[in-house]
């Protein structure tokens, strides 16, 4: 399982301030921590970055790779910023990953960059219009993206399909559909297609204390479905791995010694699978 460290995102206040001031300190500290916690790639999410995106992405890639021997995931909708980042990316630490192309024609040129710079590319299975309704629609979009990748010269083994994780608090039925999509994506090629998710979005909007619980068990369910990689909190995922045996035992219907943990796992599986209706207090019921 490849963890793409999610913490260098413009959404986080500390990171945003460091980006604005071009203060390498916090960026390098967070990058280093994620590396130590087990990340295999460091995500650099600079947002839409319409002004100064090229400089910002180059600065981010350089700052990260000065202290961490890992590749960077270039995460922005600004194609020029991605190209700028790819130009300075140190491939000695591994090939870069672009986040992302999709079925939106505006995002097609991303594949050109992927081919030109021998980069890996995330294909988000959404189109220009609304969100995909189910796993089947996600797979249909994935097929379009795969065909286009080959046309642009990006080998399928360099493509990571992303089914788009939605918030369980508002789109509960999609939690299960994403798991199904991850299974379907793998079947779409031999060798199996690689998959990736933006994991923490599952618990976006949920109370702070239940976020890690949902993140961890959703991660383990996706892992059981064959997920290749996740943009996630590496520390949280390491914690999840420690609980994997307990989780799998509960999933298999066995009784585990820790009754409280067992209840927590069961209830969380039930909301993810849609067996019970989600509410912020679902663990207390």
């Amino acid at each position, binding site marked *: 399982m490849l963890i793409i460290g999610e913490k260098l995102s413009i959404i986080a206040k500390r990171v945003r301030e460091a980006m604005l001031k071009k203060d390498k300190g916090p960026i390098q500290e967070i990058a280093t921590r994620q590396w130590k916690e087990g990340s295999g790639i460091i995500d650099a999410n600079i947002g839409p970055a319409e002004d100064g995106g090229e400089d910002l992405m180059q600065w981010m890639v350089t700052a990260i790779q000065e202290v961490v021997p890992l590749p960077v995931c270039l995460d922005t909708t600004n194609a020029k910023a991605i190209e700028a980042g790819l130009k300075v990316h140190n491939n000695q630490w591994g090939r870069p990953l672009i986040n992302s192309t999709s079925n939106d024609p505006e995002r097609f040129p991303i594949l050109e960059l992927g081919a030109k710079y021998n980069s890996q590319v995330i294909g988000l299975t959404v189109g220009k219009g609304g969100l995909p309704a189910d796993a089947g629609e996600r797979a249909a979009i994935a097929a379009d993206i795969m065909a286009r990748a080959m046309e642009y010269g990006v080998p399928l083994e360099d493509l990571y399909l992303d089914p788009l994780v939605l918030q369980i608090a*508002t789109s509960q039925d999609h939690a299960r559909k994403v798991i199904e999509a991850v299974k379907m994506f793998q079947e779409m090629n031999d060798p199996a297609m690689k998959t990736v998710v933006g994991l923490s979005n599952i618990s976006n909007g949920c109370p702070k204390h239940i976020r890690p619980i949902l993140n961890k068990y959703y991660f383990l369910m996706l892992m059981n479905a064959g997920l290749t990689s996740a943009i996630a909190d590496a520390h949280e995922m390491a914690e999840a791995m420690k609980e994997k045996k307990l989780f799998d035992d509960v999933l298999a219907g066995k009784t585990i010694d820790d009754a409280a943990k067992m209840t927590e796992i069961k209830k969380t599986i039930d909301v993810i699978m849609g*067996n019970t*209706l989600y*509410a912020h207090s679902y663990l*207390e*019921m």
Partner: protein
Amino acid sequence: MAFTPTKETYSGKVYSVAIGTGDGPVTFGGENVLPFHSFEGATPNKPVIAFEIQDVPPSDWPENVRKPFESVSGDPVTWAKYCQDELKAAAIALRLVGTHPDRENRSPEDAAKTVKDVLAAIKVPLIILGSNHAEKDSPVLVAASGAAKGGNCVIGKAQEANYKTIAAAAMANNHKLIAMSELDINLSKQLNILITQMGFEKERLITDPMCSALGYGLEYTYSVMERIRLAALTQNDTTMQPPMLGDIGMYVWKVKETQAPESDLPHWGSLEERGIAWEAVTAVGLLVAGAEFLIMRHPKAVAEVQKTIEELI
């Protein structure tokens, strides 16, 4: 060969809620099947319709729904008695809209007096509604709950922002309680959980997932109600088993279709008929989605919906 309908069996059941006292109590809910699926199980009670009245004259109601109450709506007691005696109302819903700070800004004490007077004048159950001003509703409904002690009334509406005081008052005075959230099934469940965690029995709750009029988002209310009912019946989710309210009148009688005159829109037909039809169709739509309890305004719309209920159950 005789036709045998396919039958679903459900694991859950809607709570039946009885309101009112003495010889006039009414009960709704209690079914263990989807709305009007009586052939699959038990539907012990029919949906109940309450007539809406106000603590202040209905100057904001369109003319066509003001007219039937013209001679009585100057005084809430007269209005309530008219609905009970002449219109044979099963219940009266008194909306204390005059307490709203942007309206007459009546005090909680004034509201309590109105509640007391109306309750003393009628035999049918009373529903006591605030002005939907989250902050003002707290003292108003606390005072109203106390004034109606012993009446086994319905107090509403408790929302995320004010449920603690209102639920406590309803609990202390032994009333039923409407819990309203804004068109979000997960927040609706959450609010029911929070209220029951205060010690309020879930069997005394009524869920209001927030109403909307035909053409103005009815499909959202429909979908949320439908999913709440499915969670109650198929997943046996006890937090979603209280009966549901459709607060129809106040949403219907403010949309264009119930107000635009024939002179402006001749192709829309008679305004009076149109308004009545709009309220009746919205109401029947929500009954089919799962509502067990309605608050309505126009006597002719109520009669139409009543007739539909009799035909379907």
